[in-house]
């Protein structure tokens, strides 16, 4: 790891002042679970590391008829989010995803903001020896190389899958992400926060180098039932092979509308609008869920070694729908 200056920012203002517009020069650190490994592998060699653990750690879930949205501070630890009873009740899909990230140790230091902003796990990106597209190189090595964990959607020049577990259920719950920067603050729908490689190669979201995520706002919709279903190679200390969140707005056992979002299958969380259409107005049964899952993967374009992920995510979608509807058998 290259030596760096450490700035301990106790508040948002100090943190912003310590960041700079040039990419990679100054970086924020919260739990550091992703950043430190990037630095140890010389993927990032910042001159300045800015501690932002002082950002808000609030979890506010208002109740009652006027309750509009819940607020989660960016520095909230994943373990705290997973354990928060009111939050878990209101947004089971998000809490479930938070509870499965990494390991207990990682969840005890990893934060919500850090989970959203982590860099891809692609082994070519992570290996110092490969100058891939994301590192200014000319090609994506996954195309002719090993790609069993790479993207099956998106057809982008870079074939990473987005590593965030929280991003997928947050999009399904139509969350908004608060971003602050030198010119003030803005709110970005979670679905628009993440960007495809053809729009931005050197990052995976809309953040500029001198901007910070400070909080996440999630609309409270009492009729929505949600669940996340992850399929993992290894049950802990790993990322899922593929996963899905279903957020169903139900009348009785009939779906009025829904949000189906798939994870670890594309460079950004991948919304399955075809599945949402297939579900609309239907009573949830196993056959209906499978039909929606078939629609979700109809446009998949697997690479040479990741065809199995189509089946894996199809199952994840089916089971997320059934789980949200309370129909998943153990």
């Amino acid at each position, binding site marked *: 790891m290259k030596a760096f200056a450490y700035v301990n920012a106790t508040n948002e203002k100090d943190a912003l002042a310590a960041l700079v517009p040039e990419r990679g020069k100054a970086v924020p650190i919260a739990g550091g679970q992703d950043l430190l490994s990037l630095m140890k592998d010389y993927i990032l060699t910042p001159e300045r590391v800015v501690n932002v653990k002082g950002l808000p750690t609030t979890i506010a879930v208002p109740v009652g008829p006027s309750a509009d949205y819940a607020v989660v501070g960016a520095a909230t630890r994943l373990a705290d989010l997973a354990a928060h009873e009111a939050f878990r009740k209101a947004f089971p899909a998000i809490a479930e995803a938070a509870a499965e990230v990494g390991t207990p140790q990682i969840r005890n230091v990893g934060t919500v903001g850090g989970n959203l902003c982590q860099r891809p796990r692609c*082994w070519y990106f992570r290996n110092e020896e490969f100058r891939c597209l994301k590192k200014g190189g000319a090609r994506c090595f996954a195309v002719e190389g*090993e790609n069993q964990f790479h993207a099956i959607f998106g057809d982008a020049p870079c074939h990473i899958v987005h590593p965030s577990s929280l991003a997928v259920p947050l999009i399904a719950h139509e969350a908004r992400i608060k971003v602050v920067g030198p010119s003030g603050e803005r709110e970005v729908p979670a679905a628009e926060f993440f960007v495809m490689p053809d729009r931005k190669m050197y990052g995976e979201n809309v953040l500029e180098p001198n901007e910070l995520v400070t909080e996440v706002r999630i609309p409270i919709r009492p009729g929505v039932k949600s669940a996340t279903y992850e*399929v993992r*190679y*290894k049950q802990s200390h790993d990322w899922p092979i593929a996963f899905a969140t279903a957020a169903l707005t139900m009348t009785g056992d009939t779906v009025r509308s829904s949000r189906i979002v798939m994870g670890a299958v594309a460079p950004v969380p991948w919304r399955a609008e075809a599945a949402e259409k297939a579900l609309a107005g239907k009573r949830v049964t196993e056959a209906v869920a499978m039909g929606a899952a078939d629609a979700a993967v109809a446009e998949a374009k697997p690479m040479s070694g990741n065809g199995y992920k189509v089946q*894996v995510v199809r*199952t994840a979608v089916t089971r997320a729908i059934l789980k949200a509807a309370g129909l998943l058998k153990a």
Partner: protein
Amino acid sequence: MASRDIHGIDAPWGAFRHVGRDLRKVDGLAKATGAAMYTDDIALPGMLHAKTLRSPHAHARIRSIDAADALRLAGVHAVITGEHLPVTYGILPWTQDETALAVGKVRFVGEPVAAVAAVDEDAANAALKLIRVEYEPLHAYLDPFESLARHDPPIHEGRKDGNVSKHVHLAFGDVDAALAEADVVIEDDYVFHGTTHAAIEPHCAVGHYGADGVLTVWSSTQITHYVHRALARVLDVPAHRIRVIQPCLGGAFGGKSDPFSLEFVVAKLAMTTGRPVKMLYTREEVFYTHRGRHPMHMRYRTGATREGRLVGVDATIVIDGGAYSSYGLVTTYYAGQLLTGPYAFATYRFDSTRAFTNKPPCGPKRGHGSVQPRFAFEVQLDELASTLEIDPIEIRRRNLLGEHTTTVNGQRITSNGFARCLDVVEHASNWKTRHGQLPFGRGMGVAGSMYISGTNYPIYPNPMPQAAVQLKIDRSGLVTVFTGANDIGQGSNSIAQYLVAEELGLALDQVRVVSADTDLCPVDLGAYSSRETFMVGNALIDACRKVRPLVVRAVADHWQVDPSRVRFVDGVVVELDDPPLQPAGVAVGGEARPGASPPDAAAGRRWMTAAEAFQLAEARFDTLGATGAYNTPTLGGDYRGGTIGAAPAYSFTAHVVEVSVDVETGRITCEKVWIAHDCGRALNPMLVAGQMEGSAYMGVAEALMEAHGVNRFGLHAGPSLLDYRIPTTVDTPELAALIVESLDPEGPYGAKEAGEGPLHPAIPAISNAVFDAVGIRLKHLPFTPGKVLAALRARKDAAAGTPAPALAGGAR
């Protein structure tokens, strides 16, 4: 000759006091509290830190190396390259094809090219970036079949057989005739991917060159003696001026049983700079250093009668060796030689070829050379059982090799508890009411294996003992054991303490063990081939039985009684009735300690402490001590290679594994493993169970997750513990360790190995359990969701009568 004495299986003083108990390891508390000193904990005054520049090319000629800028960097003391350490070495005398730093060319990505010693690691790393190496890339061989088919340019120049590292062809009986007459022949291809050891402690070495001209190297090695020899050869320093010490070690599993670049580099840099030098590999460097399990492509034909009796086995094996020989010669033999138990078959032939490739070199990993063929054969045996509609445990029973016999390839078998291992796992798992009867998606599988307990092959041929120890008997009542054995976590130091305390009738804390220091300890060949307990144990008993009569005689003469009336128990010497009414262990009982009155003292019998006894003996016979040694009997078949795989005893294992298979995601969950292992005698049942559980865990991991290989660019696919998946506690099945004791006539008190054998059956048993669960045969490791889904698809298509198309996008 004492080193070939057989000491018997009985307790030395009538009943065992320490052996057979769940005792703590001697270093357990130090490790648990963090007090243990590992190599990286060593910090010497003025010590420099060294780092290695590694090749970015899989195969290239080195045109030039320019280190001038690196040498000018502040804090840099020395830079060395291959020209400073040009002497070749290798663990086997016949295949010395490595150099500490590349000379002339590089043969895999990650091969050491240059090393820097600097005031700290940052300065050394900065210097590495200033070394300019000009390479001329050559064609990289990443596939063993390609490197066997062509060798222009060759990976190693000047070899008459191109890229062939080793070829072995051995035949026993007329296999072709046997298979032609067999009622059923199963023929198939099996693939074992590569895996690596992933020990928690990365390799580390510290070199010190004293003013007296003595070179000391501390290293995280499991073979102190061979490192000692290799250092003398490569550095051109007489062996008597080199001292090698293995400090506490954080796991090895075979991954620290070669001499490695860093040991030579720290020694050379210490001699060059006059300062102590340390080098600690990063995790990434450990992955490139490798020496892990060889990938093997195996074709097996197995024939049997209608009743399920094996008549012949024919194997063709292609081994992907990586860039250097390492133990490859042995691996190539082991791949065939170790299959000939626990089942008898009258005819056998194997043809195994190890190919050089431009990848990190493979070597020995827990169950060296035999885990891969065992996987193939046990899956094939299961297929034979289902074809013949015979219960898989029953077919194994019908082919038992038995005890005190000889295998088809001429290996002597002594004790053999395999039949009981099968009984035990069958009973414990409720096999009869559950196998073949669980709901779809859940299944059970069985597999068996045999493994060497030490080997009569001493790596460099020599007539000297393979294991030797020395005892120092102190008038304080302490016995110090000096043993060259390498404790790599398996507990060899602990076993030494238990055995000496048992033999000399001492309390455990009266025995301390000094190990793996070439200045202090007699030569032991090291921790490999599951040899330490068996060989060092015998050497310890040998030494104790030389010195014990002197102490007993001194006490007997002092009391003026017959020596048969002198008994040592837990550090107290007591006078027995005349004649002894019962064995001492029963007569005394309790936890007698030196200095305390044993219960018998009240009855008026004479007694003294062991320290007093030692003083009597020292006054009578002068300074007390003894050496002990062990050597294997003459073993092995009478043909070239017939001694490779010949062991003084063999351990036997059977596993039953229960799995569940999620047919919609392709995920296999290993629910439980019942492990029955014949270890001869469990000297410490807790340590034996630990080895059994650890072995089974590692086997499950290799079957389901672990994969070590380079990608299409010659680089390691994921040189980190995130990308190299090892199960955590969450992924670890329930493990039931069921110890079977066959009391081997030649093992120390009957003991055999327990550290490697219990790994083997886990992998085929999982494949066999998956067949029971969902009806697919998995023959290519590892069993990933992609492979399971593809096999399920193929099975479905076959059932529907349509040819099986490849799963879209292939299967991984």
